[in-house]
């Protein structure tokens, strides 16, 4: 059973429980849900569009080619690519696995995976909308810095 299925079942059960307890509160909850959904939709459309664009211009085959450079600038490039690309785990981990098998360095792969997860340049518009610019900027910059540190340490430890 996929995680989405579990999510739907849990949501549906909680909604049914809420409805049986208090219909007014449940209606209010659904109203809040709809409002936040319709508010996020325009930004979301932009974000999915950007994800499509980035993946068309930088497909996994192209991403693989940048892993051959093992210098520090090369590492920064790998982290930058990780920061702008957004891919689901079921694409990212097989890619990471094949990169390691193809001889890419542990440091580079760890930097890529960590920035992929922690830094989101494409999702920044949505993050700013919710939490503001100082929050988004500091969280992403720290994520980028830590990704490099984690990658370098992993190169020594793994």
């Amino acid at each position, binding site marked *: 059973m996929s995680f989405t299925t579990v999510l739907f079942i849990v*949501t549906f059960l909680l909604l049914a429980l809420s409805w049986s307890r208090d219909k007014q509160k449940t209606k209010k909850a659904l109203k809040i849900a709809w409002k936040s959904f319709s508010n996020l939709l325009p930004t979301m459309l932009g974000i999915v*569009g950007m994800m499509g664009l980035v993946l068309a211009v930088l497909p996994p085959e192209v991403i693989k080619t940048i892993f051959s450079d093992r210098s520090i600038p090369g590492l920064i490039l790998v982290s930058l690519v990780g920061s702008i690309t957004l891919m689901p785990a079921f694409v990212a981990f097989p890619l990471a696995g094949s990169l390691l098998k193809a001889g890419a360095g542990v440091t580079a792969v760890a930097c890529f995976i960590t920035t992929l997860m922690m830094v989101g340049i494409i999702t920044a518009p949505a993050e700013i909308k919710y939490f503001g610019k100082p929050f988004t900027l*500091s969280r992403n910059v720290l994520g980028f810095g830590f990704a490099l*540190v984690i990658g370098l340490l992993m190169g020594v430890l793994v």
Partner: protein
Amino acid sequence: MIMRVRKYALFLLVVLLDLGLHLSGSGKGAVAAQTGFDYLIEMLLFIPPIMVLVGLLDVWVPRHMVEKNVGQGSGLKGILISILVGSAAAGPLYAGFPVADAMLKKGCRLANAVIFLGTWATIKIPMIMMEVRFVGWKFALVRLALTLPAIITTGFVVEKFVENSNPPNRTGQQISAKAWETV
């Protein structure tokens, strides 16, 4: 009207770029549009239930409960709860934004919200199982062990940074409440 167009600015930019890519004749424009559409479908599958959960959280979870468990004085317990809840999550990081926002609105400490988002992004339990399968347990475990302190540090530094870049009377909750007004 202008506000409405502004909301769709990023989307319009993407459409223009897709068109430009298409006209350049590389065939990548269609790929980009198709991939974007696939992601949209995927997103439409999990964003609605998450929004419903956020709505339910808003009406059922009392403010004092959030404050007590992950609020200002929650300390180590608050950090642990944020990590536990974040690691049980589903979906990519941006699905966590509305949830963290709802928590902030209810009195969650800013650092804990960042820790929650960081855990959501990097150490979701279903994702770890996939990671172990493809890159091996050693890579996965060492990455986890190094990522956790990074996430916690990020939480407190972001909190400090946000506090310093805002007038002193504006805390995390008020920033979030303001974001909510634009809804």
